[in-house]
């Protein structure tokens, strides 16, 4: 018998999953509050005793953990042009499971450096210029960053011609530099995997131990990746399969949280209409975006701001004064659970609108342009209209009885420019196993795939038809 214990130190909950590897089965799951402020082991022990009483007293051969506790992996991205290297840097950081606190484009100023010091990122990703391209800006930025008084590692993934100059400016006690390949070596071509693997390495070597999460070293050393990176790896595995197992194909996932909303797509996003011209930066096959202003509680006002009051009223059936009253309530009590019909209707609207905004920002757009040669379609970003599987996770979606209605409402967009899924089969991460399976994949891919397939390969509900 081989048993593996998978641990997700989340920002709010510490979630444990016990897996029987030979049977490819989840034996039990358990959770408790994350105790990052005192010692993260306190919350872990509480959850662990729940798990052991549910699964029986098991000895685990392997323990693997991911973490988004204590703020997660906080990053700042710097690039040159906002739509090019700055965007590539942001996509690279998101894909590595980071929270991108801010993205800077063009030359950094003294104020920008002061702001970076105030943010105190875990890692700064420095990019700019294609290989053989612009050197001035990234070299200027390295020069400016050398004035920063905070200690943080810098990942250099810009113009390879400027690498030595920048390392000379920066490398030292305060800002150790990890140089890797350019995130955009050729115009509009993304190359984010090398930067991501360096980010992962720094996360393992420095950041986890640096966060002072626990006095107990052994468990903390088992933390092998940030939580979103584990989720992305589970979704990619389910989509693509393994050597011996066929994946379920292209898919998307939505993680609706209290403060942020994460959207994932494992898809090429090629135009579904052949008469389409692609524009702009090529996007990653496995793409993650994070909406920092969209969340069910801490960012509830952000949802209403982005969706507009009229749409919020229409979606919830409440009038604007009732909407404002609801926002006030949530603002006073972030742990509010909906009780009355009115509260439930408002939470429904918040969830549906948050998912819609997240999907629209993640997906590409298409524009019909009338030319002297007739109408032509111009696409920027990924076309996800043909995706029909959406996996949902995050408390607000998992625990809602109306989760299919939420997704149906979210994807019912009249705006044909937004290339979001039109018909979605919904699968629910009811036992919170996505991140656990991403971890397990690093130990036993086939077992992780089998468990994912059992959970998400079937039993789906069509949200729209």
């Amino acid at each position, binding site marked *: 018998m081989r048993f593996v214990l998978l641990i997700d130190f989340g920002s709010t909950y510490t979630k444990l999953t016990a897996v029987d590897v030979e049977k490819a089965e989840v034996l039990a799951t358990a959770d408790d509050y994350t105790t990052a402020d005192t010692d993260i082991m306190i919350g872990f022990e509480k959850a662990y005793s729940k798990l052991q009483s549910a699964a029986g007293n098991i000895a685990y051969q392997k323990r693997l953990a991911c973490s988004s506790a204590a703020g997660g992996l906080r990053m700042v991205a710097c690039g*040159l*042009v906002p*739509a*090019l*290297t700055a965007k590539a840097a942001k996509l690279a950081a998101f894909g590595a499971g980071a929270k991108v606190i801010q993205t800077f484009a063009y030359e950094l100023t003294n104020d920008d450096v002061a702001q970076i010091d105030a943010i105190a990122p875990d890692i700064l990703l420095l990019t*700019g*210029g*294609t290989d*053989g*391209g*612009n*050197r001035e800006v990234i070299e200027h930025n390295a020069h400016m960053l050398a004035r920063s008084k905070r200690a943080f590692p810098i990942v250099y993934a810009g113009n390879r011609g400027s690498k030595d100059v920048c390392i000379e400016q920066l490398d030292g006690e305060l800002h150790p530099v990890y140089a890797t390949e350019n995130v*955009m070596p*050729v*115009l*509009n071509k993304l190359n984010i995997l090398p930067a991501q693997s360096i980010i992962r390495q720094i996360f393992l070597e420095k950041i986890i131990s640096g966060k002072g999460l626990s006095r107990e070293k052994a468990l903390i050393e088992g933390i092998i990746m940030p939580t979103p990176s584990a989720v992305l790896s589970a979704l990619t595995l389910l989509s693509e399969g393994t050597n011996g197992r066929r994946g379920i194909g292209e898919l998307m996932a939505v993680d609706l949280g209290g403060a942020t909303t994460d959207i994932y797509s494992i898809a090429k996003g090629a135009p579904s209409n052949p008469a389409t*011209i692609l*524009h*702009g930066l090529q996007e990653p096959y496995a793409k993650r975006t994070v909406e920092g202003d969209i969340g069910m509680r801490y960012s509830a006002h952000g949802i209403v701001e982005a969706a507009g009051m009229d749409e919020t009223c229409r979606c919830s059936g409440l009038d604007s004064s009732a909407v404002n009253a609801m926002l006030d309530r949530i603002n006073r009590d972030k742990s509010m659970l909906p009780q009355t019909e009115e509260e439930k209707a408002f939470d429904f609207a918040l969830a549906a609108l948050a998912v819609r905004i997240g999907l629209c920002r993640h997906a590409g757009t298409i524009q019909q*342009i*009338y*030319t*002297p*040669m007739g109408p*032509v379609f*111009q696409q920027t970003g990924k076309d996800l209209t043909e995706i029909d599987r959406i996996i949902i996770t995050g408390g607000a979606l998992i625990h809602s009885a109306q989760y299919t209605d939420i997704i149906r409402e979210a994807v019912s967009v009249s705006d044909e420019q937004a290339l979001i899924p039109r018909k979605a089969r919904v699968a629910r991460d009811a036992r919170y196993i996505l991140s656990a399976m991403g971890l397990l994949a690093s130990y036993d891919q086939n077992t992780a795939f089998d468990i994912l397939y059992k959970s998400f390969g079937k039993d789906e509900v069509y949200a729209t038809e």
Partner: protein
Amino acid sequence: MEKKTLIIGVIGADVHAVGNQILYFAFREAGFNVINLGVMVSQEEYIEAAIEAKADAILVSSLYGHGELDCQGLRDKCNEAGLKDILLYVGGNIVVGKQPFEEVKKRFTDMGFDRVFGPGTSPETTIEALQEDLYGAH
């Protein structure tokens, strides 16, 4: 000799792709580092590409007759974006109808283009001009 970098593309709502491919091939064969933005390229896309790639020249093609509208303000935007001395070429069927080329050329030169090429220009002509302007060859 250091390879010079060119940005090429067809401006505006113009989808003529064949000539664009021919130029891409011809300029690369001539030893340039060529970044091809394809068809339906906006002014901003040329400029952003030129910044990231530190391009030496932007070559704008237009075949559908609306080039004059599409090209207005490109030089000003380049100046604004810090591409002060970048070489700007335009070529193709850049205006509506049959107009005397000398007049057309003047209008585009006034707009800030360094060279203006009329319909039927062979790639060799443009390559010679590029070599002269970028390398000082004759």
